[in-house]
């Protein structure tokens, strides 16, 4: 297992390099201009000058190489400096966003807390709701509960967050006035009161996002449970005189979790990638909103870096999923 992991990790380096090249090429080829948001009143010559100042005049391979060096060589040094107080990266050019003219990684780091809070929590909540639903729907296959669960989750899945978001805001913020419609990213939780405020402002975005997760995961869980409920070992467990709850919750669930856990792991990168629409609707301003802003601003270094981090996570969690699969299912061996 260890060698499998190391092997995959090493193989993922060329993979990631290739992915970075493709992403870079795509961003270069895609139409769009970092000057798009500069007002029309600014004359073209000035825009041209601004573009040059961004380094847009250079050949693509030089730009790419610069980015590679900055991302793989300088940024890690900055991290080391940050941790150990050293000064390796002193004076070296970091990956700078075109839009904010500041290091991309600093902004990303700044965004991580709220993204994790909201999107991550939503994922957790979504899973926490989905799994019991999936288990019970499968256990009572074709019962009213199962049908209702299917109904609700499918509706939840087919209604886009750009509708559910504003809908919740209109209900809970405008009519009822219970919850804030705008997320305060500066809010610091340091006591019970502020924790309550934090919960209040997280409820709506978390729920909107959790709905989607719930819909998907509960389907998978239900399917996996159905596959396992009729297995022979379940009968063996019953024959031992185990309680029905133990039979289902221990024996069946444990087996059904194997595929579901990998699906969950594969969905993890999306947490770090943020949730573009929902973040925007609730002004959570996490990574998703950042990516959207940069995409519209054609901030190539920013988009490139974010997308690439995302790619790393995808490759990494793919590996995690495979490893988890191996860990959870003792039958699978990778070496």
């Amino acid at each position, binding site marked *: 297992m260890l060698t499998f992991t190391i092997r995959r990790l090493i193989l993922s380096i060329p993979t990631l390099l290739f992915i970075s090249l493709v992403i870079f090429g795509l961003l270069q*080829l895609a*139409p*769009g*201009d*970092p*000057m*798009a*948001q*500069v*007002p*029309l*009143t*600014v*004359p*073209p*010559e*000035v*825009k*041209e*000058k*601004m*573009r*040059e*100042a*961004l380094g847009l005049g250079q050949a693509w391979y030089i730009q790419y190489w610069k980015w590679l060096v900055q991302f793989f060589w300088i940024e890690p040094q900055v991290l080391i400096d940050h941790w150990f107080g050293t000064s390796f990266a002193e004076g070296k*050019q970091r990956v*700078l*966003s075109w*839009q*904010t*003219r*500041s*290091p991309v990684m*600093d*902004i990303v780091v*700044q*965004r991580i807390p709220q993204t994790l809070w909201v999107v991550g929590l939503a994922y957790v909540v979504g899973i926490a709701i989905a799994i019991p639903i999936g288990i019970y729907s499968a256990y009572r296959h074709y019962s009213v509960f199962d049908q209702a669960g299917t109904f609700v989750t499918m509706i939840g899945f087919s209604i886009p967050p750009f509708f559910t978001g*504003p809908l919740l*805001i209109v209900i809970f*913020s*405008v009519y009822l*006035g219970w919850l*804030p*419609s*705008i997320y305060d*990213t*500066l809010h610091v939780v340091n006591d019970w009161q502020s924790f309550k405020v934090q919960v209040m402002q997280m409820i709506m975005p978390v729920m909107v996002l959790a709905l989607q997760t719930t819909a998907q995961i509960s389907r998978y869980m239900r399917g996996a449970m159905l596959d396992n409920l009729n297995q022979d070992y379940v009968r063996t467990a019953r024959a031992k005189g185990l309680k029905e709850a133990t039979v289902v919750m221990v024996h069946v669930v444990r087996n059904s979790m194997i595929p579901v856990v990998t699906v969950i792991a594969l969905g993890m990168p999306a947490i770090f990638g943020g949730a573009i629409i929902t973040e*925007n*609707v*609730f*002004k959570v*301003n996490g990574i998703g*909103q*950042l990516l959207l*802003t*940069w*995409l*519209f*601003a*054609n901030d190539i270094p920013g988009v490139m870096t974010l997308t690439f981090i995302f790619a790393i996570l995808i490759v990494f969690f793919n590996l995690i999923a495979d490893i988890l699969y191996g860990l959870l299912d003792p039958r699978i061996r990778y070496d």
Partner: protein
Amino acid sequence: DGHEGERGRDGDVKIIYWQAPSILNPFLSGGTKDVESASLIIEPLARYNEKGEMLPFLASEVPTVANGGVSEDLTQITWKLRDDIVWSDGSPFTSADVKFTAEYCMHPEGGCAQGAKFDGVTSVETPDDHTVVVTFNEPKPNPYGPFVGGESPIIQAAQFADCLGAKAPECTDANFGPIGTGPFVVTEFRPNDVITMAANENYREEGKPAFASLTFKGGGDATAAGRSVLETGEFDYAWNLQLAPDVIAKMEEGGKGVAIAGFGPLVERLEMNLTNPSPDLPEGERSTVAHPHPFLSDERVRRALSMAIDRALLTEVGYGKAGEPTCNLVPAPAIYNSDNTECLTQDLDGAKALLDEAGWTDSDGDGVRDKDGVKLSILYQTSTNAVRQDFQALIKDWWQQIGVETELRNLDASVFFGGDPGSPDTFQKFYADVEMYANTFNGTDPQTYLSAYRCGNEPKPDSQWQGENINRFCDPEYDALLDELARTGDIDKRGEIGRKLNDMITKDSMVIVPLVNRARVSAHSNSLGGVVLNVWDSELWNVADWYRKGE
């Protein structure tokens, strides 16, 4: 009503911009959101007020020819600075800072977004600590480019000393937290998210600002921003609510705030492509002057298209009180506004007659007029925006009624307004017959704005498709008149020439078909006092005067 009092008495004020500021240095961005958020911190020597008049801010008075501040030949302007101003860090504000600002923006490698303001500046002298002399290379009837208005504030020399030219982007701390003379200082800046500010303890006016702190949130969309001020009351001020009037009206019913509108020279217009955008032409020749447009080059067709439009209805549907139908490209300031009202009444029959007269008839009975095998079929593009799409639908309907077929297309604003020469979908390339957008100019002088339509200024392959003469208009008479305007200093005379130029491209030739003069619509909560909406400068220009109304 709480107007007077000590500094910081009113606690926190919350502003929401649905576009989030990404930097607080307007020289590096130029985006409205960045310029306006920065205007809370750094200030120019003079600003325009809500009427478009200039007010001295850091200068003690506005230099004019009359008071001797501007030289007779219009090539030099001398600013006298106030001597009671200190930066928020306590150090004195001097002419050196002003001179440095000019150097900063004029540095060839800096990519300064406000470079145009400094056009023609040959030198900036500082005879003493409180005097700045700016010299131009030619007579400038409007010498108020540098250091005037929100786009051209003064930055502190000490803070930015190491940030000249190519190094500009590396000064993240300075760009995110410039030291200024304005009413607020940055406490935390989170790019593309939120800015928190505190009252500037060293602000020159006693008792101002009334607010001890300011939260400047960005992100979301116009609907959400409007809602947070008008319906939930979470915020005090929301910027630029580009929403349909009925939507805003509904929000106002929430009773937490009001929407305010201010008119400037922002005109939503149709640009008629005078060149042929046909995809059958080889790349590099589409939409270039080499190929005149098959039917839009006919003035009667353009006029007929304009006559078919009911501008009043458009305004009602799209902007309500926040718009006025107009036939002019330059509807403000007042002296440049031509008394041109002919287009305001819709005349479908007249339009049909005109097309008949021009020989465009429906010869094959398919409901679309044609002539010599060419159909009156128009590709009409604009950026993606709910109101614009409503406009498209209405206009398409009218044009259909006069026998013109229309295909609509809407493009993402970042592509449409982005100048990527590789993209076929930019407004400059104009691979369409008609396009719709709005434009305006900074300050109160339309000279540069009108100069856009000079011969040769059209986007073309040689110029990497850069250029402002979007419709490829070319008239030597117009160019001559422009030259005359550049030489004229007298304000009334300028107004006259300006109106003539305006008429030449609108009423006379119909290459530009103005639709609506759009107001800037913002909203503030009922408890926020002192808001004066200003379309000539940063909306937040007088934030020092804002206060919390008593209950």
